[in-house]
């Protein structure tokens, strides 16, 4: 039960139930589809970049609490960030979920995203937490292929 409370923290549940930036954007912005075939999670990430800065970012789709909350909190933490910062945040987030090694992690950049630390105890759920992030990377790269995590 304590591990479960670690995983399903209040902040995560709040974002899962009330996702932020949960809407589509016009066709003109970059977007990519993400799919986790293992659990059926599907989402689409929209991102608008100007002068190397993420001006706006949003998502749509359906998924488990972890993937929805992760997508929602990703949009909040990346809006207004430079692409370089976004990449650093993604790397720190990835470390948080997989290695538990604090060395390369930038706690300041991570901010609220640190609540996802509990996912580390549930290795099969790591893919849920990273789906939105991988999808964002595909959108930034302009990849037409849907992203799959499995």
């Amino acid at each position, binding site marked *: 039960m304590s591990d479960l409370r670690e995983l399903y923290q209040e902040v995560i549940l709040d974002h899962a139930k009330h996702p932020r930036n949960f809407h589509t954007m016009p066709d003109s912005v970059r977007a990519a589809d993400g799919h986790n075939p293992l*659990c*059926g999670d599907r989402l689409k990430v929209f991102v608008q970049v100007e002068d190397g800065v993420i001006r706006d970012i949003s998502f749509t789709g359906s998924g488990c609490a972890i993937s929805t909350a992760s997508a929602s909190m990703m949009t909040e933490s990346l809006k207004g960030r430079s692409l370089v910062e976004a990449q650093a945040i993604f790397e720190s987030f990835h470390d948080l979920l997989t290695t538990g090694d604090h060395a390369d992690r930038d706690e300041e950049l991570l901010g609220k995203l640190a609540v996802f630390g509990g996912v580390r105890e549930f290795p099969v759920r790591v893919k849920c937490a990273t789906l939105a992030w991988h999808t964002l990377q595909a959108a930034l790269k302009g990849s037409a292929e849907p992203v799959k995590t499995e």
Partner: protein
Amino acid sequence: MAVKSMKSARGRGEAVVPLTVFSPDDIRGDFPILQTTVHGKRLAYLDNAATSQKPQAVIAAMTRFYYSQNANIHRGVYELSMEATAAYEAARECVRQFINAADFREVVFVRGATEAINLVATSWGQANVRAGDEIILSTLEHHSNIVPWQILADRVGARLRVIPINEAGELCMEEYEKLLSPRTRLVAITHVSNALGTITPVQRMVRMAHTAGALALVDGAQSVPHLPIDVRDIDCDFFVFSGHKICGPTGIGVLYCRQAILQAMPPYQGGGDMIETVTFAKTTYAPAPQKFEAGTPNISGALGLAAALDYVSGIGMDRIAGYEHQLLLYAQEKLSQVKGLKIVGTAAEKAAVISFVLSYAHPHDVGTILDGQGVAIRTGHHCCQPVMDRYGIPATARVSLAFYNTRADVDQLVQGLQTVKEVLG
């Protein structure tokens, strides 16, 4: 080769003691894994449609083989090899009896249901299905009874037709009737849906296929573990199942195929054991079933499967089916009292599978939280994406029962759902 008394050929040790009284609590003692704990909790294993647990008798049969019987089959002139051959062939006879095939030569050992279907699609399919021909499947099919046919259809230019299901998860028989035509070469249908539990009317469907001039394949992966099976009664041309879903080991399964059809089929894989003579100019093949068992087979797996079939026969498939049905009714009753829970798949004829969704939680989260309570269930699309699409949902949580499950397991599940509610509700 002559098949000796089955048990003495395979056994060389204690025979399986038939159970005369079916008490799930006694039976649970036969399964070492059911005595273990998960996250400090009693294990409630409710993912039997994915794979079943193994009784001591199966583990012992396989251990015994490697301890005292191991040798390759069909080649040695020495005692151990002859014994291993006899044991392997006795296992084939055991399967024949279990599904009531007419002849042991109709039983081909394969890796599992998936390989059996691929064998039929590759060997029979490429020899018999032509451009413009049709193969009828259903929405209920497991991906393993879809993809091999798609590959075949792409290769030869044939077409797949799909029998839809109604809201309860039952096949629409009128639609099936309409799909049958002189173009139909094969009807390949699951006997029990792994995603919803629906039992399909295979006997009637096979009869209809035959009337239309088509052959019929029945995917018994989910029926063999839960219902008495008589392939002659079903009258299908092909019947497939996996050992691991009926208390046997992984990596062994069965293709049953009517003798006349099997003998006429071209080989599936080439290699040792499946030949009569080999020269670089020409090879002649051994008769079936050897023709379809190229290479050293899974000998210990076949012995483990036979031990598993002996074990469940000792309890009695009729009684297993009866007991599981009672437990299904109990579980459905309990689950229907859980607020916000909707059962997906409510066929009148159902095996002990319950797929459900919760209004306030994604199946994946349900599975993780239940795991913390020692309850093992499956979440996802269950290799049945067309079923999920039919209901417009990405996934379900699925409970699948076996004869060693008890009301205590169901109660633990319902208790676990209470925790799901506390965490996510």
